[in-house]
C-alpha cells in the first residue's frame, strides 16, 4: 500500500466514525490520475500549478511554450458549472488551450439500483437521472420495456405521453435559457425563466402529484388519467407562456451584451459533433436536421405537425435560437395534442402488465390476485435485449435493457445525452477566451445527474 492509499483509507474511516481531523481533506481531494496528462516537456509546469509565482525562469528567453501555460481548476463546487462539473483548464494568458471535464461527483449508482428494482419500479429510478426532463427518462425506459413485452398502448396513453413530454421540453428549455442568461450576467432571465416554468410545474403537480421526478409514465401506459379540468390548465399555459417568450426574445436579442457574448462563441462544427457523439440542440445548431422525433418516431409523434429548427454557425447564439424555436414547436405540439386528445383508457388492459382499476379489486378475486402479483413480485418480461432512443431536450436519450426472463432487469443502462455532449466541451472551448467558458457550458445545458447517473 502506498502512502497515498493508506491516507485515503484512513480518511474513509474518519468519515464513517465522524471524528474530525483537520488538514487531511485537502490532500484527499487531489485527483491524481484523473488530471490532465502532462505535456512531454512540462517538467516545470507543476511549479506554476502550485502557485509558485515569482520564479524568474518564466522570464527566460528560451523557455518552451508549454512552460508559459497555467492549469486552473474550476469546480466541482462552482456556481456556473450547472452542478458538480469540474474542469481542468490549461491557459496561455487568457486563452484556453486544452481543457478536460472531470465528472463523477454525482455518481449515484442508478444502473446498479435499477437491477434491484422490478420492471414497474424502474421509472422511479430513471426519472431521477435527468431531473430537468423526468418524463423523457420515464418514456425511454417504458418504451424499451414495452418493446420487450411486445404490447401496444391505447391511443389516449400515447397522446398523454406526448403532451407531457413536450410540456417538459418547454420547461427544460426555459431553465436552459434562465441559467444561460444568468451565467452571462442577464440575471433577470433567471427570475423570468423560473417563473414561467412554475406554470408548467403546477400542471405537472396537479396531474402526477409531484413537481419533479414524477414516476408518471410507466410500462403499460401512464399512472393516472389527466385531471378533470385539464383543458383549462393547458389553455392557461398556452395563454400565458407564448407572450412571455416573445418578451424574452426582445429582451435578449436587443441586448448588445448578450449578442456580443454569444455570437461566434463556443463554436463546434457538424463533423466534430458527429465525431464526439454530440446530439440534440447542439447538433442541430451546427447545421444538422437530425431529430429522433422525425427519424424514428415514437409514441405517435408522427401524427403531429412540427418543424425541426436548424442553426448554421454552431455557436452559443445558434444553440439559444434552436432552443427558443423548439419551445415554439413544442407548444404547437401541446396544442395539437390537447385538441385531438382521444377518449378511452390511459393504460393497457393487459392485466399481466398493468394493475386493474381500483374499483375492480373489490369485486373480482382475479383482479386482486393480479394487483398483488404486480406490486409484490412484478411482471415477467421475456428474455431479450433492446435499445430504444427518444429525443430528450438534450439529445438522444436511449435505454438499453437486458432481460433474462425474470421480473427484474439483468442490465439497465441509459444512454444519457449530457454524458456524450460533455465530450464536445473541450472542442468548443479550445482557443477561446476564459471569460467565455461559462457561456459555453451553459449553452451545452448539461445536467450533471444525467452525466453521472
Amino acid at each position, binding site marked *: 500500500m502506498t502512502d497515498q492509499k493508506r491516507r485515503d483509507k484512513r480518511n474513509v474511516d474518519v*468519515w464513517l466514525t465522524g471524528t474530525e481531523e483537520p488538514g487531511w481533506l485537502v490532500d484527499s481531494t487531489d485527483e491524481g490520475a484523473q488530471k490532465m496528462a502532462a505535456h512531454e516537456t512540462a517538467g516545470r509546469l507543476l511549479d506554476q500549478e502550485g502557485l509558485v509565482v515569482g520564479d524568474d525562469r518564466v522570464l527566460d528567453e528560451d523557455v518552451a511554450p508549454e512552460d508559459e501555460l497555467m492549469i486552473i481548476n474550476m469546480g466541482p463546487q462552482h456556481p456556473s458549472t450547472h452542478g458538480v462539473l469540474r474542469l481542468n483548464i490549461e491557459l496561455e494568458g487568457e486563452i484556453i488551450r486544452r481543457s478536460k471535464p472531470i465528472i463523477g461527483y454525482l455518481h449515484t449508482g442508478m444502473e446498479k439500483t435499477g437491477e434491484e428494482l422490478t420492471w414497474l419500479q424502474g421509472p422511479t*429510478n430513471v426519472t431521477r437521472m435527468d431531473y430537468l426532463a423526468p418524463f423523457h427518462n420515464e418514456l425511454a425506459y417504458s418504451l424499451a420495456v414495452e418493446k420487450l413485452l411486445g404490447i401496444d398502448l391505447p391511443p389516449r396513453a400515447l397522446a398523454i405521453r406526448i403532451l407531457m413530454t413536450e410540456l417538459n421540453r418547454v420547461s427544460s428549455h426555459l431553465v436552459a435559457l434562465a441559467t444561460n442568461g444568468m451565467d452571462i450576467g442577464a440575471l433577470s432571465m433567471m427570475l423570468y*425563466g423560473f417563473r414561467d416554468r412554475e406554470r408548467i410545474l403546477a400542471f405537472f403537480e396537479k396531474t402526477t402529484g409531484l413537481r*419533479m*421526478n414524477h414516476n408518471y409514465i410507466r410500462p403499460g401506459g401512464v399512472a393516472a388519467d389527466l385531471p378533470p379540468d385539464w383543458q383549462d390548465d393547458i389553455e392557461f399555459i398556452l395563454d400565458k407562456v407564448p407572450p412571455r417568450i416573445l418578451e424574452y426574445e426582445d429582451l435578449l436579442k436587443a441586448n448588445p451584451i448578450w449578442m456580443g457574448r454569444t455570437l461566434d462563441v463556443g463554436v463546434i462544427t457538424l463533423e466534430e459533433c458527429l465525431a464526439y457523439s454530440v446530439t440534440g440542440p447542439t447538433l442541430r445548431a451546427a447545421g444538422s436536421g437530425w431529430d429522433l422525433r422525425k427519424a424514428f418516431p415514437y409514441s405517435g409523434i408522427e401524427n403531429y405537425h412540427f418543424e425541426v429548427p436548424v442553426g448554421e454557425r454552431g455557436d452559443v447564439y445558434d444553440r439559444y435560437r434552436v432552443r427558443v424555436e423548439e419551445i415554439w414547436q413544442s407548444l404547437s405540439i401541446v396544442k395539437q395534442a390537447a385538441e385531438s386528445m382521444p377518449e378511452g383508457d390511459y393504460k393497457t388492459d393487459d392485466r399481466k402488465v398493468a394493475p386493474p382499476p381500483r374499483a375492480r379489486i373489490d369485486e373480482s378475486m382475479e383482479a386482486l390476485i393480479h394487483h398483488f402479483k404486480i406490486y409484490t413480485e412484478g411482471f415477467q418480461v421475456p428474455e431479450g435485449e433492446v435499445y430504444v432512443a427518444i429525443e430528450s431536450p438534450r439529445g438522444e436519450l436511449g435505454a438499453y435493457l437486458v432481460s433474462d426472463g425474470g421480473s427484474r432487469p439483468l442490465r439497465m443502462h441509459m444512454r444519457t445525452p449530457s454524458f456524450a455532449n460533455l465530450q464536445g466541451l473541450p472542442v468548443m472551448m479550445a482557443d477561446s477566451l476564459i471569460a467565455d467558458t461559462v457561456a459555453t457550458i451553459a449553452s451545452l445545458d448539461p445536467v450533471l445527474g444525467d452525466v453521472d447517473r
Partner: protein
Amino acid sequence: MSHPANPPGFLLANLDKVRHWAQTRSMFTVTFGLACCAIEMMATGAGHYDLARFGMEVFRASPRQADLMIVAGRVSQKMAPVLRQVYDQMPEPKWVISMGACASTGGMFNNYALVQGVDQIVPVDIYIPGCPPGPQSLMHGILTLHDKIMSGEIAH
C-alpha cells in the same frame, strides 16, 4: 414605552437576543446544489417563491462569505471530501440544512456510490424530508432554523 425598565428613547435587549436577531435576519447561503433538489432550491430563490422575503436571496459562491450550507441533493463518495472541505472553509457560526431524502438518509439509493446521510460527514441542524421537498418545505425548514436560532436552541 413607559415601562420602567425601558426609559423613553432607549431600546434595551439582551445581547444574546440581538445577536440571534442579527444572525437570522440576513443569512447567506453557500451554493451547494448537487442534484434534483438543487433545482427546487433554485426555484425557491427565483421569482415565484422569492426567498428574498426572508433576507436570503443571496446565494454565495464562496463559502468564506456564507453562514448556512443547504446540502441539496445526493452526496456521492467522490463528492464527500469536497463537501467537507467547503464546510471547513465556512466561518463560524455556521449551520447546515440537509435537504431531501438523499442528503438526509441516502434516499432510495442505498448502494455503493452514495454517502448514506450527509450527517456522517458534517453536523446537520435541520433535515427536510421529501423527494424533492417543495419550495414550501424548504422555506419551512429555513424558518424552523431561524426560530431555533432565535430561541437559542441551536447555539453556536
